[in-house]
């Protein structure tokens, strides 16, 4: 248990709690919502043999792309890595074990863990190869696939604003997987551009209540990576 007044930490100290071999959820869809500063700190501290759970693999040289290139990730649980050719190459060479889920199922597996359930029943993927790798049950006249919840030791999330207790507010499309992961991991480390005193955020504006957040760190706004995107607009 982290007491309320112990949550606001220097980034080095928060990330130092992560051991080798940890499973870590990482927020973000592409660049928005990716906790770049926490990832950079993890890169600097040297933890290895990590299992990462993230929607995508960012892009070469960006976000978790750096951890993958440094050989620090042994397993990636994700939905799409098409924008990171280095991650695809590492997967094809057999250096990176990749588990792919349809994006909405990945989100719901995490949400389910965060809601204190151990999974859910779904018809998504029936008739495709996704359904061949899971158990099914008959219920009320229909066949359902069983999708177990997805947990992790740690979650690294990015918020726009926070308070010292760990209440979080996300912005624009930087929300994505962050609020789900913030509920699903044993230890949740949040980075925010601004961490204020409790009371400075309106209670009804909070997206993730502080009860789910273990540690909160303040980071410099918008790293250069935030604006580096190799897309066509």
């Amino acid at each position, binding site marked *: 248990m982290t007491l309320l007044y112990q949550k606001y930490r220097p980034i080095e100290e928060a990330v130092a709690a992560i051991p080798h071999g940890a499973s870590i959820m990482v927020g973000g869809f592409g660049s928005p919502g990716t906790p770049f500063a926490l990832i950079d700190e993890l890169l600097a501290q040297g933890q290895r043999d990590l299992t990462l759970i993230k929607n995508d693999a960012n892009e070469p040289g960006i976000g978790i792309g750096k951890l993958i290139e440094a050989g620090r990730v042994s397993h990636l649980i994700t939905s799409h*890595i098409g924008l990171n050719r280095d991650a695809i190459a590492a997967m094809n060479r057999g250096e990176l074990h990749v588990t792919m889920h349809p*994006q*909405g199922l990945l989100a719901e597996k995490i949400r389910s863990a965060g809601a204190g359930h151990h999974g859910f029943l779904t018809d998504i993927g029936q008739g495709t190869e996704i359904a061949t790798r899971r158990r099914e049950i008959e219920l009320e006249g229909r066949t359902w696939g069983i999708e177990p919840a997805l947990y992790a030791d740690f979650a690294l999330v990015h918020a726009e604003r926070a308070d010292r207790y760990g209440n979080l507010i996300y*912005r624009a499309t930087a929300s994505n997987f962050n609020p*789900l992961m913030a509920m699903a991991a044993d230890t949740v480390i949040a980075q925010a551009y601004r961490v204020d005193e409790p009371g400075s955020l309106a209670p009804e504006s909070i997206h993730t209540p502080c009860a789910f957040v273990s540690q909160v760190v303040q980071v410099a706004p*918008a790293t250069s990576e935030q604006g580096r995107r190799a897309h066509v*607009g």
Partner: protein
Amino acid sequence: MSADQQRILTRAAREVIPGQIVNLGIGLPTRLFHYLPEDLEVLVHSENGVLGCRPRHADEAPDYEMIDSGGAYIATRPGASVFDSAISFAMIRRSRVDLTFMGAFEVDELGNLANWKIPGKFSPGIGGAMELAQKVKRLVILCSHNDKHGNAKILQRCRLPLTAERCVSRIITDKAVMDVTPQGLTVVDIAEGLSVAELREATDAKLIVDDAQLGRF
């Protein structure tokens, strides 16, 4: 963009009904954004967590935390909302998205779709395609009629791993507009200058053609 792609997109824009919630898949469908009039009362959904996005104007600075699922910096229109991935996919699974456009490697007579994996060659992951294909009320495929080697993409049965079964409503290619019906693929429109015989030659599926009903595009 090629003339064929422009013809596909111009035709596809006619599929959108004012008042709808519409998702644009990655690739060619994303370009459809630019074919929808800005005053059209439509909310464009992007599965990364926004309903009501629009292309950024040339003079608007990019907001680095506002992207669509293809990674393009976008803006929002009045009535827009942003939300997390669980809500975004709840919207899809509950069929609250009226219409979606997607690309395809293969589509078949039953409306089966394959657009995410070529075993041994291309397997970046499925992203949101499976849920969108399976649950959005109306799925319109936008793709070239034949691949770059000239092979048909419209088939009797898909050979590649499926994205979803029996999910496609309509297919718009550079050569034809086809509806998936219980009887099979019915040609709605055929490209200007193309004969029905040429269309059949380019297709590996049975096509139902009623000359009296056939439109041109």
